[in-house]
């Protein structure tokens, strides 16, 4: 039963493998060249398993000690998981104890496969979801470990490599921009964060930005919701 589900799940994850190995390695090297010990990116890859947030976490670890800021940032950046969870409530029902791992590993890519895949006839769907999730996590942790360990051997400086985080976040934003029906939410995010950055400064603009975004989304809900 497990093997049959594995054979159905593995091919679906192959496109993710390339991306996760490449980005994971970039993340590992980025963390090392930022001066963090190799264990930090590897542990975060395993326990957080949310790529864009891990890049941001590396950046935050190089700043001051601000666990509240880090918590709020993680809540905000990963708010999309709420939506994934709501969409998977019924699909992840009745798969036994595996359910808790499926929820733990519910990243963008595992969500998009498990949400859309037609699990073939005769294949156990719980095990299918499980293999998709764990394979994706293995790719990410492997990529991060390779990058983190390779980063220990790279003795030359790589000025400008930190831009990989910016490039990643811009590309994720653009990708979402091209897919969304209305740009109001994206524009609110850009504008609110930009104004808060000018007003509060780079050290403390995240929490005000989040508050302003939620306030605007709530106040103008009627106008925004119909266009989503």
């Amino acid at each position, binding site marked *: 039963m497990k093997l049959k589900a594995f054979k159905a799940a593995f091919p679906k994850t192959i496109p993710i493998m390339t991306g996760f190995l490449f980005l994971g390695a970039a993340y590992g090297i980025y963390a090392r060249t930022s001066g963090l010990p190799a264990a930090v990116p590897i542990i975060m890859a395993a326990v957080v398993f949310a790529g864009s947030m891990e890049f941001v976490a590396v950046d935050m670890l190089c700043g001051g000690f601000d666990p509240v800021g880090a918590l709020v940032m993680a809540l905000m950046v990963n708010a999309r998981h709420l939506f994934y969870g709501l969409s998977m409530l019924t699909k992840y029902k009745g798969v036994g104890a595996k359910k808790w791992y499926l929820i733990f590993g519910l990243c963008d890519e595992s969500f998009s496969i498990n949400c859309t895949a037609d699990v073939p006839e005769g294949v156990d769907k719980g095990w299918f979801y499980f293999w998709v999730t764990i394979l994706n996590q293995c790719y990410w942790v492997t990529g991060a470990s390779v990058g983190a360990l390779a980063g220990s051997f790279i003795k030359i400086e790589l000025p400008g490599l930190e831009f990989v985080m*910016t490039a990643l976040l811009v590309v994720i934003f653009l990708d979402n921009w091209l897919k969304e029906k209305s740009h109001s939410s994206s524009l609110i995010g850009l504008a609110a964060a930009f104004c808060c950055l000018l007003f509060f400064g780079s050290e403390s603009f995240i929490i005000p930005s989040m508050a302003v975004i939620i306030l605007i989304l709530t106040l103008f809900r009627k106008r925004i919701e119909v266009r989503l």
Partner: protein
Amino acid sequence: MTSLTFWQIAVMIGAVTLGTMLTRFTPFLVFGGEKRVPKYVEYLGKALPGAALGLLVIYSFKDVNVLAGSHGLPELIALAAIIALHLWKKNMLLSIAAGTAVYMLLVNFIF
């Protein structure tokens, strides 16, 4: 370079993990039964992602100083390259790799 101690790093990682896991487990713990999902929560689940990504873009440029140094020009050029390439090829990995390469070339050899 990080100035944090071992325990400060551990607490920061714990905070990021807690925040991430709250977003993943909350729907299942709160609405796992037959309870109806409030419309407002559903709305936020749909409306927040775009805004959060916008916030992240601003976050990633937060340390650019337009008044001094290279005035943010390398960032601006690399950003333009990423947007152009991504609209053209729509290949995430290519856009990220090329954008980073452009930036590294600019800061190492030109600015």
